[in-house]
């Protein structure tokens, strides 16, 4: 919000039964984040659209139920001349159902701080990250001028100054669940008609070149960070909740009044705190692992299931399976809004929390998974599938030409020591198994397995090192010895004199 304030307007009932609990939420929130202001509003839930930002650049509504639709939230933003994505609602009624009443104020305050943090972290939404949409049906210009019919849909935008380009990367293309990003040249392009704003591309981009309205990487990071950094009395499980799914569950449950009388499915243990995300398609393995590495006793997702517009269900299932393999199945849960009892998977007892390892939340892969695995240091790690890979190089055939390193989007493969003793090095924690290296290798000596193994945590290591061949006239490096040997091998019929020039002289000396 460009240094401006975000106001958290919290219903004075706050779905915890009395004003005292609502005051507790406000007290816990006060000073939680710089730039955050809190106001308790009498019976805000009766008229959430009447909330006043009172000069703040963003507004978070703490409500007893799911509250207004996204279109209505935008209308509220419009009325107060705020950014279209600067007003969000948090369903405290849903939170109340995710844990015992005694922990509601703390979990509610943290969830509000998470949303407020995202608004504080984001500036005005760049026009390219949203798509203007006039309301459905017949819309007159008068309607447009009155502002009633205009809404903005979040869409992805690729920043070309940062993007590695289609040739080298294209991970966003692979990550997009709806095929809205295509491998055009030199940069991938986004079909904003097809884009559903799920932000899968944001977490897949290794260099932070993609942003989605309301879900820039710094905003997603801020959502997690507020919960990571919260001074918990007892750390709850962390629930990544798709905004649409949370709304569907909240609507299903009714307006949410009188939580203390209407016990939710989770009534024991530390309960859950929610971090709202655009879609589960954005929630990677790394996000799940990081939550537990940061001290949460368990991690869960709440998605739309079969109704997901991004079709995230299969990919999310794979990610949960990977997280369960690393963390243990008792620490990983999956809830679906389209299930008969959506929140039932969250009701099972949560195991005690492990140590909080103080890692910062990372949005992008492979950094997120790599950092989490390093922090968790799981023993005897050997998993097939997952977000990471292990390139295997047949070293006797590798000429150290370095071509593979030029197409590695994450710098997992890198040439080092050029000019002296060139070496091909690998940091497997950075490998996303894109396979570019295997495709481009002229000697066909690279294969990539989608796998997390001991190599993943081994740090950067040398795959092959060799001496450099030097110019016999000036001593400058010509090429790695294996490459020179390969040239001789490929040109057996060539005259010795020419071979001597090609392999024994540097470019500068060849013309003399």
């Amino acid at each position, binding site marked *: 919000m460009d240094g401006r304030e975000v106001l958290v307007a919290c219903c004075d009932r706050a779905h915890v039964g009395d004003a005292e609990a609502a005051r507790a939420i406000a007290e816990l929130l006060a000073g939680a984040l710089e730039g955050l202001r809190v106001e308790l509003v009498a019976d805000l839930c009766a008229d959430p659209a009447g909330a006043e930002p009172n000069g703040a650049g963003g507004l978070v509504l703490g409500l007893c139920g799911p509250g207004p639709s996204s279109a209505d939230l935008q209308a509220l933003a*419009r009325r107060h*001349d*705020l*950014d*279209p994505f600067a007003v969000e609602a948090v369903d405290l009624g849903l939170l109340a159902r995710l844990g015992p009443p005694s922990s509601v104020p703390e979990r509610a305050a943290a969830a509000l701080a998470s949303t407020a943090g995202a608004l504080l972290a984001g500036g*005005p*939404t*760049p*026009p*390219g990250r*949203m*798509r*203007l*949409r*006039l309301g459905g049906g*017949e*819309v*007159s*210009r*008068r*309607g*447009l*001028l*009155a*502002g009633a*019919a*205009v809404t*903005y849909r979040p869409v992805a935008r690729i920043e070309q*100054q940062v993007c590695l380009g289609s040739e080298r990367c294209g991970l966003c293309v692979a990550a997009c669940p709806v095929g809205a990003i295509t491998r055009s040249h030199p940069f991938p392009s986004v079909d904003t008609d097809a884009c559903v704003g799920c932000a899968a591309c944001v977490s897949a981009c290794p260099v932070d070149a993609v942003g989605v309205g309301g879900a820039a990487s710094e905003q997603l990071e801020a959502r997690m960070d507020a919960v990571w950094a919260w001074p918990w009395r007892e750390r709850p499980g962390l629930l990544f909740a798709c905004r649409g799914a949370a709304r569907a569950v909240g609507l299903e449950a009714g307006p949410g009044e009188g939580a203390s009388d209407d016990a939710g499915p989770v009534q024991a243990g530390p309960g859950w705190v929610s971090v709202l995300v655009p879609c589960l398609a954005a929630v990677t393995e790394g996000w799940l692992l990081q939550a537990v590495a940061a001290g949460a006793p368990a991690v869960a997702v709440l998605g739309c299931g079969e109704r997901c517009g991004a079709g995230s269900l299969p990919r999310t299932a794979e990610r949960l399976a990977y997280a369960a393999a690393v963390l243990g199945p008792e620490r990983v849960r999956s809830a679906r809004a389209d299930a008969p009892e959506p929140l039932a998977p969250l009701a099972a007892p949560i195991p005690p929390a492990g140590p909080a390892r103080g890692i910062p939340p990372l949005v992008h892969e492979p950094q997120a998974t790599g950092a989490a695995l390093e922090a968790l240091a799981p023993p005897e790690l050997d998993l097939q599938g997952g977000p990471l890979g292990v390139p295997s190089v047949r070293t006797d055939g590798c000429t150290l030409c370095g071509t593979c390193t030029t197409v590695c989007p994450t710098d997992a493969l890198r040439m080092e020591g050029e000019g002296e003793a060139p070496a091909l090095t690998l940091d497997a924690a950075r490998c996303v198994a894109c396979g570019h290296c295997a495709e481009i290798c002229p000697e066909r000596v690279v294969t990539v397995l989608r796998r997390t193994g001991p190599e993943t945590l081994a740090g950067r290591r040398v795959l092959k090192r060799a001496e450099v061949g030097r110019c016999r006239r000036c001593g400058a490096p010509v090429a790695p010895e294996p490459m020179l040997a390969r040239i001789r091998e490929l040109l057996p019929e060539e005259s010795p004199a020419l071979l001597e020039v090609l392999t024994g002289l540097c470019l500068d000396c060849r013309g003399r």
Partner: protein
Amino acid sequence: MSGEERGLAEPRAAAYRVLASALLPPTPERLATLVAAAPELVALLEPLRGLAFHPALRALLERLAGLSAEEAEEHRRTYATLFVSGRRSSPPPYESAHLGPDTDVAMAAAAVDAAYRSAGLVLDAEGEAPDHVAVELDFLSALCAREAEAPAPAEAERLRRLQRAFLLAHPLRWLPRFAEAVAAQAPGTLLAQTVEVAVRYVEHDAALLDSLPAAAG
């Protein structure tokens, strides 16, 4: 042409005109006029309230309205340092300077000028070069103003197509890079804010023009 149609084109023309004026060399007279007119401009642009760029544009006008003499002097200094001094690192306010190293500057400027001529407009010989940021925005303002006065919907539609084509062919090709350069060289200044708002506005306006035909009804 209905009042509704005119209603949208007029404030769009005004927004372009404001931004163009704010990006011309800030002579004391021009800046004083802009500062004096800023509160009125806020009201004039009220029909655009609700569109995503409006808060940024309003914030710019409010900053202008409250500009002190010292701030005005600072603004003139920033403008001169960046755009007049000819420093090697300065981002020139001309399209031809931002299209890449192989660009023929004269040809690029001539292409913009040709776009003006094809719309029936000829530049004042004494004024800025055709590819100056303010001139390009002023041209769009003129097209919007014509749209507001168009005698028939078909003519208004033709003018919107012209605006969109010009936006894509010219301002959208270079203004974002220009804005980044200005923000890097003069962060937090009125000039950087003005250029940033201009980028937001042209990007949004292109999106708006994309959406309008569906609403033309």
